[in-house]
């Protein structure tokens, strides 16, 4: 392991990275960082919250979306397939705008909405961002989970049935864990795509990482420094996701390497 980490091409890459970072630190302006520290942290927070909540909620929706496509009944399977096709076939930006500018502008005219407890949330941008990103993730992962469920060997489920297990127990204890295990590598990539989809919410005035750096560029007239730092932030987040999934896969998937 140690030798592989320090192979010549890796040493070269490390040297190049050190050089680039040093040049960036010495040649570029970073004095604005202090002024915008809180804004950047705030944006990063919204990005993380959106990423985590929408992928968790989206994945929970994806489980039934994938399952009914495998088990039926047929009308439900068609509905689920239709939903996934619709979500995957249209731009996420369009979905966000349809929800925010379309649905969002209808709400004030619906009787009773203005007085309800929901109203304070309906005038914010983030609930629309949350719903749009959740539905999008559900659409893509519904398709992934369909494949995951369908790919679990039938015999493993028959063994569970032959022991008198209830269908819901089989789903919870055998089918779902095995399906998730199979789609883990795909989920890793999908989560990174979801991370990189979050900047779209800046178009409906939600202040995420991307929106904060847009503001910095407008106010400071700098081009490269904010963009480079933003790229670094997204790169680190994506790296953390891959690292987490790597650990998950090693501890979890390795056991069934044989299939």
């Amino acid at each position, binding site marked *: 392991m140690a030798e592989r980490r320090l192979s010549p091409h890796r040493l070269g890459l490390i040297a190049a990275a050190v050089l680039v970072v040093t040049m960036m630190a010495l040649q570029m302006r970073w004095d604005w960082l202090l002024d915008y520290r809180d804004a950047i942290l705030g944006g990063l927070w919204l990005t993380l919250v959106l990423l985590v909540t929408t992928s968790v909620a989206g994945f929970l929706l994806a489980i039934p979306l994938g399952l009914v496509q495998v088990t039926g009944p047929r009308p439900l399977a068609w509905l689920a397939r239709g939903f996934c096709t619709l979500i995957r076939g249209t731009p996420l930006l369009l979905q966000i705008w349809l929800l925010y500018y379309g649905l969002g502008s209808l709400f004030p005219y619906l009787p009773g909405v203005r007085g309800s407890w929901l109203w304070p949330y309906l005038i914010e941008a983030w609930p629309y961002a949350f719903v749009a990103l959740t539905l999008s993730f559900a659409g893509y992962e519904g398709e992934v989970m369909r494949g995951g469920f369908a790919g679990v*060997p039938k015999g*493993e489920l*028959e063994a569970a*049935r*032959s022991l008198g297990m209830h269908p819901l127990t089989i789903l919870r204890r055998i089918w779902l864990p095995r399906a998730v295990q199979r789609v883990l590598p795909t989920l890793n990539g999908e989560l990174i795509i979801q991370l990189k989809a979050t900047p779209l919410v800046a178009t409906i005035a939600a202040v995420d990482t991307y929106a904060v750096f847009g503001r910095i560029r407008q106010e400071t007239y700098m081009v490269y420094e904010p963009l480079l730092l933003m790229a670094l932030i997204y790169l680190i987040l994506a790296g953390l996701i891959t690292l987490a999934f790597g650990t998950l896969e090693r501890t979890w998937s390795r056991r*069934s390497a044989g299939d």
Partner: protein
Amino acid sequence: MSNASTTTASRGDAVIEVENLHKAYGDARVLKGIDLSAGREDVVALIGSSGSGKSTLLRCLNLLETPTSGSLRLLGEAIPFRGQGARRETADRRQLRRLRARLGMVFQGFNLWPHMTLEANIMEAPIQVLKRSRAEARDEAGALLERVGLYHLRKAYPTTLSGGQQQRGAIARALAMGPEALLFDEPTSALDPELVGEVLSVMRDLAKEGRTMIIVTHEMAFAADVADRVVFLDQGEIAEQGAPEQVFGAPTAQRLQRFLGSVSPSQGE
């Protein structure tokens, strides 16, 4: 219903009773009117060439396949059906789960759950279905693993085990439910020849202790050795059945004579 062995009848209640059972997939008729019964402590071997319907028949016995027509009694209870053709299904799913819990099944492909340790595989159904405590289930699993010679591998994951070890684990998993009958679907067909013996010896012990067993097998020597009754299936029909000495020693049906001539003497044991 012909029952060749007189000892079988004296053993009392039928555990499994099948009458005029048919199974078709579309136009393909796989089973054409099977009558079969197994009493307590019976060991029945189902033999026949591939495509004869013997695995389908076994899978009908715990309703992994739904018969197209015919009647089925499991552990003394009649199984009600509803619907027609491909949509036909058991009418009482709760009854079916209750009965399945009392009928163990061992598959050709082992079908252990790869995301659980061997021990957890065996504990799973007792905990989830019989509502045993974890401690209780673990003790029982330990005893069963001891019995099939796998106690030292209880924390291993199935994919790290040999086929023979996996199949012995799968037998332990079926035994953990305390089943009143065991169904074996070609339990040694997926094994390397040198691993067949260890699985057959576990099954032989089970037969000796008076378990009710229905075994679909290609191991003729094993069938002759442990079975009380051998049933020969050909093209979806029972062509001959009787005590092993009679079926193997003096086969009357021509189809059976041809079949026995085509299978090489078993390598088992």
